[in-house]
């Protein structure tokens, strides 16, 4: 079934980066940066704990941040909901994000690769559709 959303983004959501309010597993709402440059969708360890994800046996992937090489746990989030467009079982890396970034996650390609996307920055329009 095709899902489609069409959003008029508020100014705060499109200043330096594109920000989206994203619901995870239907009980946690966080802000994420729309990030076509990130292979994985990313959440912080705090979010992972809130979602009750068990990272003990999770596969690890090497990720280089601005300062160091880190091993990020790779897990699966049951449900990622962008304003009503819901994808299930999304591969997600768990890594600390710098507090200065001001977000708790990146909406990366492990989510976006299943979607068609239109981003019209001057008109602050964002459309997302599952293919």
């Amino acid at each position, binding site marked *: 079934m095709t899902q489609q959303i069409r959003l008029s983004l508020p100014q705060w959501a499109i*200043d*330096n*980066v594109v*920000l989206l*309010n994203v*619901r995870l597993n*239907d*009980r*946690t*709402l*966080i*802000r994420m*940066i729309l*990030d076509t*440059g*990130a*292979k*994985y969708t*990313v959440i912080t360890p*705090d979010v992972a*704990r*809130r979602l*009750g994800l068990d990272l003990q046996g999770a596969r690890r*992937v*090497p*990720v*280089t*941040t*601005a300062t160091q*090489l880190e091993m990020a746990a790779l897990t699966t989030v049951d449900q990622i909901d962008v*304003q*009503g467009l819901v994808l299930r079982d999304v591969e997600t890396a768990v890594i600390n*994000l*710098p*507090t*200065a*970034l*001001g*977000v*708790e996650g*990146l909406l990366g390609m492990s989510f976006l690769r299943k979607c068609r996307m239109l981003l019209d920055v001057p008109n602050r329009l964002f459309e997302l559709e599952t293919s």
Partner: protein
Amino acid sequence: MVTKVEELVKTIQRLSPSEKEYVIGSVLRFMQTESEIQSLADLKARYPGEWLAVIIPEGEDRYNPQRGCLVAHSPDKSSVWQRVADLPASEDVYLFFNGPVAAKGFGIIFHDTADTPVVTTVGD
């Protein structure tokens, strides 16, 4: 309105003690919850530059809530998460930073060394 309130009082008076306790308790809980619900615009004005966690009340917009019950606020993100960790998993929680995101001049790079390098840069 007065008539309806009087009818309600009479109805409650006819209830058994345990039923009365249940009804009055429910009303008090509802009143308490309502009094704790605040406008997010007010909270944002009161706590600039801080991390905020709020419970989204039933009936509120689930993606862009305008009102919520404040759980915690602090410039220190981890202390806010500690308070959120104490909440039941069933609570609908919104956690966000009330300030500029990805300040100018700030950059972040992710490089998946096992595959093609991927780079993200934010800010100027």
